[in-house]
C-alpha cells in the first residue's frame, strides 16, 4: 500500500532509510552509519599505512577523517600501533567539534563522553545527555524494531581483570564447529531446527561468519519445505503457495514452533527490506502464517502492524486482543510492542513496566524508549540506558573483535575506550598493562617501555575507576604501589585499595589491605589490622581461602612472639638471595638470547616532549623512525598474541594439554623402567632355574 516511504515509527515518525531523512534535519547523516568493528576494519589499515593522507582528508572536511585524527590526538603516541600523534587534547577537541558539526555520529559520541566526564571540557551532564540522545536517535535506523534482540555482551562477558572468575571464555572455534555440525545435520538429516539455527546464524552473523541474507532465506524456506513440500524458492511466492493450497498441519509442537519461527523471521526480513524493498503486505502474510501456527511473537508482530497501520488500517481492538494473547505467553516482543503502544497512548508508567521487561529480554529498541522516557527527569538513568543502547547498536564492545588481528583489535579497543565504553576501556588498559603477570613483574626490571605502557594503561584504568570499577581502582593502587608509570606512592595505593573496599567489598582489596598492613607498606606494620582484613577477605569470598591461609601461616611464623620467627627470617633471606640469583640468571639468559637488548635500543622519550610537539605537522616519516626495533616489537606482539589466545580462546585446554603431556611422559618413563625391571627379573629367574637344573 505504502511502499518504501512509509513512516516507520509512530512515536517520532522516523523513516526506515537514512536517505529519506529530510535534508538538514539533525538525523540526516552524510554517510551511512557503520558499526565500530566495521569502521575499524575499514580505517585502521589506512591509518597505519598513510596517516598523512587521512590528515589531509580531515583538513578537507571529511567528518570521518576528522574524527579519526581527533581520536589519534586524544590517544597520544603508541609504539605498538605504529601511531605517533602526540597527545593533544585541545587539538583533538577541535577536530571533534569540526566533525560533530557535520553530525558525524562517532564524533558526537566522543564529545558526549568528554562532556559527561569533563575531559578537556568542563563537565556538563545536560550537554552529554543531549548528545547521547542525538546519537541514539541517529543510530536507531540500524535497529529493527521487531527482530532486534541483542545480547548485552558487556554484561554477559565482562572483562576479568584479575582472571578471578575463570569462566569459560567465548570461543570462535567452537562456533565454527557448531556451524559445520548444523550444516551437516540440516542437509543430511533434514532437521527443521537445524535449518532454523543455521539460518539464524546466517541472518545475524557470528564472529567467524558474516551475514548472508540469501543463505538465511534459503534455509528458512528449506525448513518450511520440509513440512509444506514443493513451495517455490522465493519467499513471496512461497507464502502465496502456502495460502493457496493449505497442506497438512505440522505434526508435532516442536515442528510447529520451528515453522512459526521461520515464518516470523521471514516476515521481519520482508518488513525491514532485507529481501529487497520493504514489503509490509508480504510481512503481514508471513506473520499471519505464524499466527496460524499459534506463534506469540507473530501475534505481537501483527499487533504492531495494526498499530502502525500498514498494510491494514489501525485497529485498536485487534491490537489489544492480539497483545493480550501474546503477553499471556510472556513473549518478549509482545512486551516491547505493548510498551510502544502504551507510550503512544501516553501511559508512561505502563509503558515503562512493559519496556523494562522487554529490555531484560534483550530487546534493543525498548532500551532507547526507556532512555527517552527517563530523559530530562532522571539523567543518570537516561545516560546509562543511552550508553547501553549505543554500545550495543554500534557494537563498541563485541565478540566480533576476537577475529581481528591483535593490532586492529587493540586499536578497536582504544577507539571504543575513547568513546566511553567501560569494558573497552578495561580491555584496552589490560592490553597495555605491564603487570598482568606476577612472575614477569617480579623477574624483569621495569624499563622505559614498561612505564609508557603503564601510563597508557593507567589512563584507561583511571577512566574505568571513575565509573566505580573496583578492579580498575585496585589496579591503580597496584601501579602506585609498584611505581609503574608513576613514582611509587604506597600511601596513595593504600588509599585506593581502601576506596575500592569501601565502594564494593572485594576480597582482593581486603587481601591487599591486609598484605600492606602485614608488610608495613604505606602504613605501619599492624598484624591485628592485617588479620582483620584477611578475615574480611575470607568473609566476602571463600575462594580467598588459600591466600588467606598462606598469609595467616606467614604471620604466625614471622610474628616476633614466635620462637620460629628467627628461623623464618633467615630462611626468607636465603630464599630471597636464591631468587635474586635466579632472576639474575634469567635476565642474563635473555640478554644472551637477544643481543639487541630490549631496553637499550629504545629511544628514551620523556612524555613531556611528546606533548610539546606541534600538532600541525605530524610527520609520518618520523613516526616510523621513532618505532622501537622490530625485534622487540615482534617479541611484545607475539607475547600479546599468546596472552590473548590464552585468555579468550582455550586457556583451559592449553593447561589441560600441558599437564596431560607431562603426566603421560612421566608415566611412560616409569612404565618403561618397570617393564625393564620385570624383564630383568624374569631373565634372572630363568638363569637361576637353569643353574639349578
Amino acid at each position: 500500500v505504502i511502499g518504501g516511504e512509509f513512516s516507520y515509527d509512530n512515536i517520532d515518525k522516523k523513516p526506515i532509510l537514512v536517505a529519506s531523512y529530510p535534508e538538514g534535519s539533525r538525523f540526516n547523516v552524510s554517510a551511512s552509519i557503520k558499526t565500530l568493528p566495521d569502521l575499524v576494519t575499514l580505517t585502521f589499515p589506512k591509518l597505519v599505512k598513510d596517516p598523512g593522507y587521512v590528515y589531509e582528508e580531515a583538513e578537507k572536511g571529511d567528518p570521518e577523517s576528522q574524527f579519526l585524527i581527533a581520536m589519534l590526538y586524544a590517544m597520544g603516541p603508541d609504539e605498538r600501533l605504529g601511531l605517533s600523534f602526540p597527545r593533544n587534547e585541545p587539538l583533538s577537541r577541535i577536530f571533534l567539534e569540526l566533525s560533530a558539526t557535520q553530525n558525524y555520529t562517532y564524533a558526537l559520541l566522543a564529545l558526549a563522553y568528554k562532556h559527561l566526564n569533563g575531559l578537556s571540557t568542563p563537565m556538563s551532564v545536560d550537554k552529554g545527555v543531549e548528545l547521547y540522545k542525538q546519537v541514539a536517535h541517529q543510530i536507531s535506523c540500524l535497529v529493527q524494531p521487531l527482530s532486534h534482540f541483542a545480547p548485552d555482551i558487556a554484561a554477559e562477558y565482562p572483562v576479568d581483570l584479575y582472571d578471578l572468575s575463570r569462566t569459560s571464555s567465548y570461543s570462535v572455534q567452537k562456533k565454527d564447529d557448531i556451524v559445520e555440525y548444523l550444516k551437516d545435520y540440516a542437509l543430511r538429516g533434514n532437521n527443521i531446527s537445524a535449518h532454523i539455527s543455521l539460518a539464524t546464524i546466517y541472518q545475524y552473523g557470528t564472529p567467524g561468519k558474516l551475514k548472508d541474507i540469501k543463505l538465511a532465506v534459503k534455509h528458512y524456506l528449506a525448513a518450511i519445505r520440509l513440512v509444506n513440500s514443493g513451495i517455490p524458492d522465493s519467499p513471496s511466492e512461497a507464502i502465496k503457495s502456502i495460502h493457496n493450497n493449505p497442506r497438512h498441519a505440522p505434526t508435532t509442537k516442536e515442528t510447529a514452533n520451528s515453522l512459526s519461527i521461520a515464518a516470523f523471521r521471514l516476515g521481519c526480513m520482508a518488513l525491514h527490506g532485507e529481501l529487497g524493498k520493504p514489503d509490509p503486505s508480504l510481512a503481514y502474510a508471513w506473520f499471519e502464517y505464524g499466527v496460524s501456527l499459534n506463534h506469540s511473537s507473530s501475534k505481537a508482530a501483527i499487533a504492531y502492524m495494526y498499530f502502525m497501520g500498514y498494510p491494514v488500517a489501525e485497529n485498536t481492538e485487534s491490537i489489544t486482543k492480539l497483545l493480550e494473547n501474546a503477553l499471556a505467553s510472556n513473549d518478549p516482543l509482545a512486551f516491547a510492542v505493548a510498551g510502544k503502544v502504551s507510550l503512544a497512548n501516553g501511559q508512561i508508567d505502563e509503558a515503562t513496566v512493559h519496556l523494562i521487561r522487554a529490555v531484560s529480554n534483550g530487546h534493543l529498541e525498548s532500551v532507547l524508549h526507556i532512555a527517552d522516557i527517563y530523559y530530562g527527569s532522571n539523567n543518570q538513568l537516561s545516560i546509562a540506558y543511552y550508553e547501553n543502547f549505543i554500545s550495543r547498536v554500534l557494537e563498541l564492545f563485541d565478540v566480533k573483535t576476537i577475529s581481528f588481528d591483535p593490532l586492529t583489535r587493540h586499536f578497536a579497543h582504544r577507539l571504543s575506550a575513547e568513546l566511553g565504553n567501560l569494558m573497552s576501556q578495561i580491555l584496552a588498559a589490560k592490553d597495555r598493562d605491564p603487570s598482568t603477570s606476577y612472575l614477569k613483574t617480579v623477574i624483569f626490571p621495569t624499563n622505559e617501555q614498561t612505564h609508557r605502557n603503564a601510563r597508557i594503561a593507567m589512563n584507561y584504568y583511571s577512566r574505568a575507576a571513575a565509573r566505580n570499577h573496583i578492579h580498575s581502582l585496585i589496579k591503580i593502587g597496584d601501579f602506585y604501589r609498584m611505581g609503574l608509570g608513576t613514582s611509587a606512592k604506597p600511601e596513595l595505593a593504600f588509599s585506593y585499595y581502601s576506596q575500592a573496599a569501601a565502594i564494593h567489598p572485594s576480597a582482593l582489596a581486603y587481601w591487599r589491605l591486609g598484605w600492606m598492613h602485614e608488610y608495613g607498606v604505606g602504613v605501619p606494620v599492624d598484624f591485628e589490622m592485617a588479620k582483620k582484613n584477611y578475615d574480611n577477605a575470607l568473609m566476602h569470598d571463600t575462594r580467598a581461602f588459600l591466600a588467606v591461609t598462606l598469609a595467616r601461616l606467614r604471620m604466625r611464623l614471622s610474628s616476633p612472639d614466635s620462637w620460629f620467627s628467627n628461623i623464618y627470617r633467615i630462611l626468607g633471606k636465603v630464599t630471597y638471595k636464591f631468587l635474586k640469583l635466579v632472576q639474575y640468571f634469567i635476565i642474563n639468559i635473555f640478554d644472551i638470547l637477544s643481543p639487541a637488548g630490549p631496553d637499550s635500543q629504545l629511544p628514551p622519550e620523556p612524555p613531556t616532549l611528546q606533548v610539546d610537539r606541534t600538532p600541525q605537522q605530524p610527520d609520518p616519516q618520523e613516526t616510523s623512525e621513532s618505532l622501537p626495533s622490530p625485534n622487540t616489537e615482534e617479541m611484545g606482539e607475539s607475547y600479546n598474541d599468546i596472552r590473548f589466545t590464552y585468555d579468550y580462546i582455550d586457556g583451559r585446554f592449553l593447561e589441560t594439554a600441558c599437564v596431560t603431556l607431562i603426566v603421560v611422559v612421566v608415566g611412560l618413563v616409569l612404565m618403561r623402567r618397570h617393564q625393564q625391571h620385570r624383564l630383568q627379573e624374569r631373565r634372572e629367574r630363568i638363569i637361576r632355574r637353569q643353574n639349578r637344573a
Partner: protein
Amino acid sequence: MKFILYVLASLVLFGLSVLLSLYSSANVYSATVMISQSPVHITIGLNVCLCLFFAIANALKTLLFGSLQTFELELLYEQFWITLTEIMLAITVFREAISISFFMLLSTLMFARVFHSICSFRTERLQIQLTDQRFHIFSRLTCAYFVLSILDASLIYLCFTSEHLGDKSTRMLFVCEFSVLLLNLTIEASKLCIYLYEARHLDQVWDEKSTYLFRLEVCRDGLRLLAYSLLFMYQFPYVSVPIYSIRQMYTCFYSLFRRIREHARFRQATRDMNAMYPTATEEQLTNSDRTCTICREEMFHPDHPPENTDEMEPLPRGLDMTPKRLPCGHILHFHCLRNWLERQQTCPICRRSVIGNQSSPTGIPASPNVRATQIATQVPNPQNTPTTTAVPGITNSSNQGDPQASTFNGVPNANSSGFAAHTQDLSSVIPRRIALRDGWTMLPIPGTRRIPTYSQSTSTTNPSATPTTGDPSNSTYGGPQTFPNSGNNPNFNRGIAGIVPPGWRLVSSNTQSLSTNSAMTSLYQNASSADNNLGSSLPNVVPLSRGLTQSNETSNTFPAASSNISSQLRELHTKIDELRETVSNFRADYNSIRTSLNQLEAASGINERIQTTSADSLLNSNGMSGTEGFENTQTSITTNDNQSSILTSSDQTSPFATDEDRQNSRNVQLETVDENF
C-alpha cells in the same frame, strides 16, 4: 626408587603449576584463586599432598618398623582395602561435600590404621621371639607405640577443638575412630607388658596369662562397642540410617561374642586336661615318631624318661612335658597342647574338635590307661557317641554309609578281629570310619554302590593279608580296623589292595608323619604298583592333609572311572612320591643341621650367634633384619621354638611351602587381623 621418582615428578609438576599460575595472574591472590579453582591445578596440588603424605608415612614406617616383610605387606594391603571400604560406607552418611580437610583426615586415618595393625602384629610376633630375652625397653616397637599414641591423641584433640576440619558429625566420626585406635594401642601395649613379664620369668610357666589376655581383649571389645554406640547415638539424629556405626557396632558385638564363646570353649577344653586327654603309653609313643608336632621335640612317657637327661637343657618349672593323646589319636606335649588350645580347640594336625568327646562327662578322672581303652572302644562305635571323631563334612558326605553303620553295632569282636572279618560281610558291616595309623583314615567314597561283589572277590583272593600283625597298641588305639603297622611284613605289598576295600579310600591328614616314615612311602609305591595289577577297581588312595571333603568330588567319579583316569592318577601318585622323597631328603638334612646346631649350642652356649650363623637371618622376625624371604608364619606361630622354622623358611621354593601351607598361614594371619580390628 620408583617412589622417589614419583615424588620428584609430582613436586616438579606442582612447581610448574605454581609458576604457571603466577605467570598468568597479576598477583599472588589471583594466583592462589587460580590454583584453588582450576581443576587441573587442584589435581596437581592434591597429588603433591598425597605424595608428600605417602613420603612422610613411608619415612615414619622406615623409622618405626624398618622394612616390612612380604606377609606384612599382604596384611597391610588387605587392611588398606578394608579401611577404604569402611570409609566409603562412612561417606554415605555425610551431607556436605567432601572437603580437602576431610580427605586429609581420611588419609591420616587410613595410615594410622595401617601403622597400628603393623604394631599389633609386631607385638604378637615379639611374643614368640621374647624367649631369647633380647627385648630392650628402648626398642623400635616401644618408640612406635609412643609415636602412634601421640599421633592418636593429637588427632583426637585436633578433631575436638578445630572447627574448620569439618562439621560436627564428621569430626565426631574421626574422634571415635582415633579413640578406638588409641584404645587398641593401649591394649596392645598391655599385651606387650604381659609378654614381657612372661619372658622375664621364663623358668616359671604362667598359666593365667591366657586369662589375662582374654580379659584384655574383652575389655577392648567392650570399649570399642561403647565407642561406636556413642557414635551411633550421636549420629542418629543427623542421619536416618547411620550404616557405618551400625556396621561397626555389629562387628564389635560379634567379635565380643565370638571371643567369649571361644574362651568358654577353651575353658572347656582345658578345664581338666589331665582327665580329658590320656597320657600316651610308651607303645603309642613308639608307634608314632615320638615328635611333638608343635615344638618338634621328642616326647617321652613320664615313666620312661630318656637316658641322656643330663645333656638336655633344664626345663622351666611347671612346664609339663607329659605326652597327651587327643581323641583323634594325635599325641602332643601337655604344655604345647595347652598353648595350642588357647588359640583353637581343634587338633592341630587333623583339625578335629577336641571337645566333642567330653559330651558325656566321666565324672571321676580315670587313669590314663583305663581312659585310653575307654576311648578305644568308643571310637569305632558311632552309635554311642555320634560326634566322636566324625568331622561334620564327612558325616554328610558319607550318607550312604549310614544304613550300614547302623548295623555296625552288631560287630561282636571289635577288639580282636582284623579287617577280614569285615570284608567277609562288608555289605552289612561297614565301619563309618576306619582308623589306621596316625593321621590315616579310611573313608567311604560317596557314590559307590558296587561294594559287596568286589569286596568278596578281594577277600577271597587275599585272605592272608588281612590278619593283623597282632600289635596290641593298634588294637587299643585304633580299634579293629587298624592299618597293619609293619613295613617289614612280607605280605604287606599285596596286602594293601586287600586291606582297603573297594569304595573306600585311604586318607592322610598328616603329611609330616608320612614323610618321615619311609615305610609309608613304600606303601604308597606298592599301592600304586598293585593298582596296575588290579585294574580300575582299586581303592583310591588320596593323600589329604586337611579338608577331607575336598577330595569328595574327585572320588565321586571313581567307580565309573576308566583306565585313563587311573593311569593319570598313577602318574600323579608317582609325582607325589617323588616329592615325598625330596621332602624326606630335606628332613634328613634338617635333622643333620639340627644335630649340628645342638652340638654348636652345647659348645658355645650362645643362642644368638647360632641363630645368625646357622640359617638365614629371616628368623630374626623382629623385622629389623630387612630380608624379604617368605616366612612360614604358621610354624612360627604354632611353635615356640624358633629353630624349627629354619627349615621351612630357609628356602622359598621348599616343598614344605606348598600352596596349602601358604593358605593355611594366611588363614591364621587373617584371624589375627580380624581380632585386632
